[in-house]
C-alpha cells in the first residue's frame, strides 16, 4: 500500500498545477518523474552550501564533496546489489548505453560478430549499436518478439548462438512495458561466451533489480525516471569487464598521467569512465531519490503500478473507441489509440482535459512496424498517481468527444 500522503512530498503535486483549466493529471512517468522535496533540497544544498568540484581540491569543502559522492556511489551500489567500484555516474541511460557500445563494443567486436537487440528497444539502445556495428563490421540481429511484443526465453534461445557477442535489451520496454526474462537470457548468452547489457531505464525505478541475481554484465538507467534530477544516471558493469574496458570519453578526472608523446595512464574503474566534471548536485539529488523510493518500498511501488494498470485496463478494455496494445504487460504503462484519431491529436485532446500523456513513437520507431501503427498514446504511472486520477483518465476516454474540441 502506498500512503496517499506521499503526494505531499512533491511540489509538483502540492502546488495544485492546472493545465488547460483542469487540475493536472500527470501520466507521463515513463518519460520523467516528479521530484520530492528532499531531492530538491539535496541538490539545492550542494548548490547553495557545498559547491566545489569533486576530486580536484586540497581543501575541506572539496573533501566534503568527495565524501558525499562516495557515499552516494555506495548507496547506488547497495540499491542494485553491486560493488561500489562497479557503479559509474553518467548523465543518464543514454550516456550509459553509449559507454557500453563505444567502450566495450567498439574494442571487442570483430567483423561477423553479432549484436542481438529487439524491435522494442528505445532509440538509445539501438542507434549506438547501429553505429558500432558499422564501425566494426559486426551484424545487428533481433530476437523475434511474440505477436504481443514480448521477448521469450524460447525466442532468445533460438537467436543466441556462438557468434552472439553482445545482447542488449530492455528489462522493461518503454512503449509496451513487457518484462523480459533477463536472468534466463543472461545465462544463455554466457553459455555462448557473450555478454548481456540490460537497459534498466524503465525497470529500475519500478521493480527491485539485483545485478547479481540477474547476472547481467552491464545495467544502464537514468535518475530522472526515479524521482532524481535530470542529467543523472548510472552504468553498472562487472568489475572484471570494466577493468579491461576502454573509456568512451577522455579528459580530466579519469587519468593518472599523460605525456606529450600521447602516452597516458588511466585511473581504474569507475573513475576511468567519468571524464570531466560530474553532475555533483545531481548526484546529491540522485542519492536522496534512491533513499526516498526505497523508503516507499520497491515492492509497494511495483504493486501500486500493477493495481493502477489493472484498473485502467479494466476501464478501457470494453470501450469500442479505444484500441489498447499492451493490456497484458507487466509495467504501469497503457499504450493505446483512440480509434480514427491520430495519436498526436488524441494527446492534444487529453491535454485540453488536463491529462499529460505522451503521443508518438516513443523513441522506439521500429516497434510500430510490429504492432502495425505508426504512433500511439502512452499513459504511464508511478507511485504518486491515484486511483482517482486513473478513473478520470478512463472516464475521459470512455466519454470521448471531438478531438478538435481542444482548439475551440
Amino acid at each position, binding site marked *: 500500500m502506498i500512503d496517499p500522503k506521499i503526494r505531499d512530498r512533491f511540489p509538483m503535486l502540492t502546488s495544485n498545477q492546472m493545465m488547460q483549466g483542469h487540475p493536472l493529471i500527470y501520466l507521463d512517468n515513463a518519460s520523467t518523474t516528479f521530484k520530492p522535496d528532499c531531492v530538491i533540497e539535496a541538490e539545492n544544498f550542494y548548490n547553495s552550501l557545498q559547491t566545489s568540484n569533486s576530486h580536484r581540491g586540497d581543501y575541506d569543502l572539496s573533501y566534503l564533496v568527495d565524501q558525499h559522492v562516495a557515499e552516494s556511489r555506495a548507496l547506488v551500489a547497495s540499491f542494485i546489489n553491486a560493488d561500489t567500484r562497479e557503479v559509474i555516474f553518467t548523465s543518464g541511460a543514454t550516456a550509459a548505453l553509449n559507454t557500453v557500445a563505444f567502450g566495450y563494443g567498439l574494442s571487442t567486436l570483430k567483423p561477423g560478430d553479432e549484436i542481438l537487440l529487439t524491435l522494442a528497444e528505445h532509440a538509445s539502445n539501438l542507434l549506438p549499436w547501429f553505429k558500432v556495428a558499422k564501425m566494426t563490421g559486426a551484424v545487428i540481429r533481433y530476437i523475434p518478439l511474440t505477436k504481443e511484443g514480448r521477448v521469450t526465453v524460447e525466442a532468445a534461445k533460438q537467436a543466441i548462438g556462438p557468434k552472439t557477442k553482445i545482447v542488449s535489451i530492455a528489462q522493461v520496454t518503454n512503449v509496451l512495458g513487457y518484462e523480459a526474462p533477463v536472468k534466463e537470457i543472461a545465462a544463455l548468452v554466457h553459455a555462448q561466451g557473450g555478454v548481456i547489457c540490460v537497459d534498466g531505464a524503465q525497470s529500475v525505478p519500478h521493480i527491485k533489480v539485483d545485478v547479481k541475481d540477474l547476472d547481467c554484465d552491464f545495467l544502464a538507467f537514468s535518475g530522472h525516471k526515479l524521482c532524481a534530477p535530470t542529467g543523472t544516471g548510472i552504468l553498472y558493469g562487472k568489475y572484471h569487464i570494466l577493468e579491461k574496458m576502454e573509456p568512451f570519453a577522455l579528459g580530466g578526472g579519469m587519468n593518472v598521467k599523460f605525456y606529450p608523446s600521447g602516452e597516458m595512464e588511466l585511473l581504474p574503474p569507475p573513475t576511468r569512465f567519468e571524464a570531466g566534471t560530474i553532475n555533483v548536485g545531481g548526484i546529491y539529488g540522485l542519492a536522496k531519490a534512491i533513499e526516498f523510493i526505497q523508503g516507499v518500498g520497491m515492492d509497494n511501488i511495483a504493486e501500486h503500478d500493477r493495481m493502477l494498470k489493472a484498473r485502467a485496463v479494466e476501464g478501457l478494455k470494453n470501450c469500442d473507441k479505444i484500441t489498447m496494445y499492451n493490456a497484458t504487460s507487466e509495467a504501469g504503462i497503457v499504450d493505446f489509440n483512440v480509434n480514427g*484519431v*491520430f*495519436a*498526436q*491529436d488524441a494527446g*492534444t485532446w487529453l*491535454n*485540453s482535459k488536463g491529462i499529460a500523456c505522451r*503521443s*508518438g*513513437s516513443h523513441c522506439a520507431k521500429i516497434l510500430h512496424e510490429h504492432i502495425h501503427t*505508426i*504512433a500511439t498514446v502512452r499513459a504511464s504511472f508511478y507511485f504518486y498517481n491515484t486511483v482517482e486520477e486513473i478513473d478520470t483518465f478512463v472516464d475521459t476516454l470512455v466519454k470521448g468527444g*471531438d*478531438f*478538435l474540441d*481542444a*482548439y*475551440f
Partner: protein
Amino acid sequence: MPTFELTPAMMREIIMDHYSSPRHKCDPEQEGYVSLHSASVNCIDDINVYLKLDDKGIVEDARWNGVACAISTASSDILCDLLIGKNEKDALYLNEQFHKMLHEEPYDSSVLEEAMAFMNTSKQAARIHCATIGWDAMEQLLKEHRHDR
C-alpha cells in the same frame, strides 16, 4: 480586415475537410519539382513538401506528403491551395502573416483565407509547430529557389 467572418464551427469544418480529404497530399509524378523534407523532434510529423515554379517564379503547383496529425495535415494542405498561382513575394507575405497569427501578433488577415481556421492553434501551444511545419518548409524552399536572388 477579414474578407469573411469565420465561426468556430466553420473553422472546425475547414480543418476536418482538409484532414479527411486533403487535395494536395501526394508525391509528384513528374520532374520539375523542388522539394524539402521536414520532421519534428516534438511530434510524429514527418513530411516532404514540393514546389513547382514557372520561369517567372509563379507557383505552378504545390504538394506535400508524409505522416502528419490533423493540424499539420490540414495546414499543409491549405497552404498548398493558397500558394498555387502566387508569385514568390506574395507567397512569402502570406507565410509571414500566418506565422504572425499563430504567435498572436498583429497580422493581415486579408490574405489568409481558409488558413484563418488556425486562429486558435495557440490555445494548444505544443501544436503550433504542427500548424507551421509545412509552412516553414515551403518558406525555406521559396527562399532557396527565388528567381530574383
